[in-house]
């Protein structure tokens, strides 16, 4: 009896320790009830089931706020009129804003600064020698400008004439030139901030002697620093990461493809463009009509740009992406889906 009560105390303390231990073994993070399962595909093709939600930068066209597929082949030729000396006047209106929140990747919201509501802004397309007149309205909170790359008078450079927010206006007017593909962007300090938030776009000057007809498209290579640590969280062709991977760009065999490429990535010194299963003729800055390279890989520094031309011989899916793989694994990757060309379909008319 004596021993029993003593060991009783010990047994009790042992029991408490065991009970606590068992409790922690038995109840890990709560019990998951069987729910309906979602499925997703990994980068390596494995299919994974989950009872929860899928985190995948996979956009459907229904949810996308900015449609990269629409932007890809959307050229703005302006309101055209003839001046007395028979030169063509092309008038554009560009409105800046800096308060829009956009879902730039599924579930991730970022304050974009926009020209005409999108990043990149509208692609402005003119012919060499045209008079370009851009009415700029700044509806943002901050000062903004438009600085065109190209040849123009100092007063039209969009640097020393900041346009005040809340309705400030300015008219940029100059003769289009030189031939090529150029960026335009806001040039207000702090410049990096104004660029990385999205105030940029593409300005194409066509030669008077037109380039051959082709399926033409614009790709702005850009990055998004969503947590402001001066490193890009996302990279893309035309803003939305992985978009053209999940929504391949449809093209045809034996049809000339012309891509106007502009690198607007900040923070990282270089970007590049690699095409699968093919090589392209490359015209740096698009200022010449004779290609400088025949390659499948070009390196682009900040605002470096050019024109690529290629044709696919074989149908199928071909990747295009940054061969700086970090960029491609953060969104700068896409697919050309090459379809068999029905010879009856004529390629699109150039210009209009």
């Amino acid at each position, binding site marked *: 009896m004596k021993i029993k009560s003593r060991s009783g105390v010990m047994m009790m303390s042992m029991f408490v320790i065991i009970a606590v*231990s068992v409790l922690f073994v038995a109840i890990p993070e709560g019990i998951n009830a069987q729910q309906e399962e979602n499925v997703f595909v990994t980068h390596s093709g494995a299919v994974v089931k989950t009872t*929860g939600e899928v985190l995948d930068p*996979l956009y459907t066209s229904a949810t996308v706020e900015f449609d990269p597929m629409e932007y890809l082949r959307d050229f703005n030729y302006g309101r055209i009129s003839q001046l007395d000396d028979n030169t063509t006047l092309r008038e554009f209106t560009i409105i800046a804003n800096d308060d829009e929140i956009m879902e730039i990747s599924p579930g991730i919201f970022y304050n974009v600064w926009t020209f005409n509501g999108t990043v990149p802004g509208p692609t402005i397309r003119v012919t060499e020698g045209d008079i370009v007149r851009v009415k700029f309205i700044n509806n943002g909170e901050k000062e903004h400008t438009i600085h065109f790359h190209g040849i123009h008078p100092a007063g039209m450079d969009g640097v020393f004439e900041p346009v005040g927010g809340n309705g400030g206006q300015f008219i940029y007017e100059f003769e289009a030139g030189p031939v090529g593909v150029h960026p335009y962007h806001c040039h207000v300090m702090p410049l990096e901030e104004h660029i990385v938030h999205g105030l940029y776009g593409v300005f194409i000057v066509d030669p008077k002697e037109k380039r051959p007809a082709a399926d033409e498209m614009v790709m702005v290579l850009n990055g998004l620093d969503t947590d402001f640590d001066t490193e890009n969280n996302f990279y893309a062709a035309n803003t939305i990461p992985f978009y053209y991977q999940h929504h391949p760009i449809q093209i045809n065999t034996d049809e000339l493809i012309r891509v106007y490429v502009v690198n607007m990535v900040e923070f990282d010194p270089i970007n590049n463009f690699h095409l699968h299963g093919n090589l392209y003729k490359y015209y740096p800055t698009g200022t010449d009509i004779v290609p400088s390279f025949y390659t499948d890989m070009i390196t682009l520094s900040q605002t470096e740009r050019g024109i690529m031309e290629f044709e696919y011989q074989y149908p199928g899916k071909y990747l295009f992406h940054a061969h700086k793989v970090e960029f491609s694994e953060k969104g700068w990757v896409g697919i050309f889906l090459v379809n068999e060309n029905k010879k009856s379909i004529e390629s699109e008319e150039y210009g209009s």
Partner: protein
Amino acid sequence: MEVSNKSSKGKLIASGAIPFVFLIILIAYIFGPGSELLDLGVPLPDISMEKVDFLNSEIQVTVRNTGPISVEIAMADINDRIQPAAVEPDRYLERYETALVRIPFEWNEAEPYRIGITIEDGTRFEKEIEAAAPALEPSLELFGFFAIIGTYVGIIPVMIGLLWLPFIRRISKQKYHFFLALTAGLLLFLGIDSVEEALEVSDESLAGSFNGVLLVATVLILSFLGLYYTGEKLVSRAKSSRITKPVAIALMISIGIGLHNFGEGLAIGAAVGLGSIAFSTFLIIGFALHNTTEGIAIASPLSREKKVIGKLIAMGLIAGAPAIFGAWIGGFVYSPFTSVIFLSIGAGAIFQVIITILKWIREEGDKNLSSAAVASGFAIGMIIMYLTSILV
């Protein structure tokens, strides 16, 4: 008389309740009409990745919202490369809520990985894993393996330490006090060790919002007070009952050491679970040597008792066996929070035991804690522990 008594009672209740009423009004006002006045500053979201498990072709991350506002998990990446992933049960995390992010990934053993989670406002959080190691799948074999490790580092060394009992028994009172003080020194070291470990775990894996240092302090003091109270009860009851005071003290010591060894077991189990390659036979030997001293701590107060074999075995088990349970829990269901809690409880228990021992030496001896025997015992206890700890 009765009336005035009643009214004074009413006054008492009222005077106690009135501040509460005002406090409730204040809170209601701040949440209600006054909330706009206080709407200053931008609350920043925060999440913690508490646990990362490397499974077959998959990395699993336990994410807790430890910020002031609710968040949505939007994206996962490995080494800053975006990966398709899943979040269970869902992406919405209220404060302190957790979710499991499953990232399919062909990882390589022993390579370092940075796990990134991006939330809806584009903020990316990162956790670095030094070396990937497969998560332990509970199996009977592993269960047994942990039991053996627990026995090696917990039960056996304590039992070996207890074998010094006959030696301590034969020595003079002065030397006996030396050994009691030595025990206190050993325990003080263990207590500090536990606190350090608890702070380290909370620093590495617990979010700032848990107030790691204060959590450790609070749990430690609560544990100390709880055991101090029950210990005193036990000792005072010992005077009238069959348990003698030395037995009561030895029991308190073994419970305190048991709690400490539980924390130690957690650390060992977690180390195996996290694949710390340094964990080896050498580490087990270190722990074993270190823990042998704990046996002395239990044996010392019992040395003036008779018929102690049974008690010794029981106390050895109380002190040593928790290492097994700790290893199981640490290996299979490790959570930094429970780890911190148990280490703090263990520290509180140990400090309580130290006080008990010192009080006892003071009563036993000549109301003197500054004798050469006590001072040197204490000092040597600390030194022994330090030297054996180098092995761990």
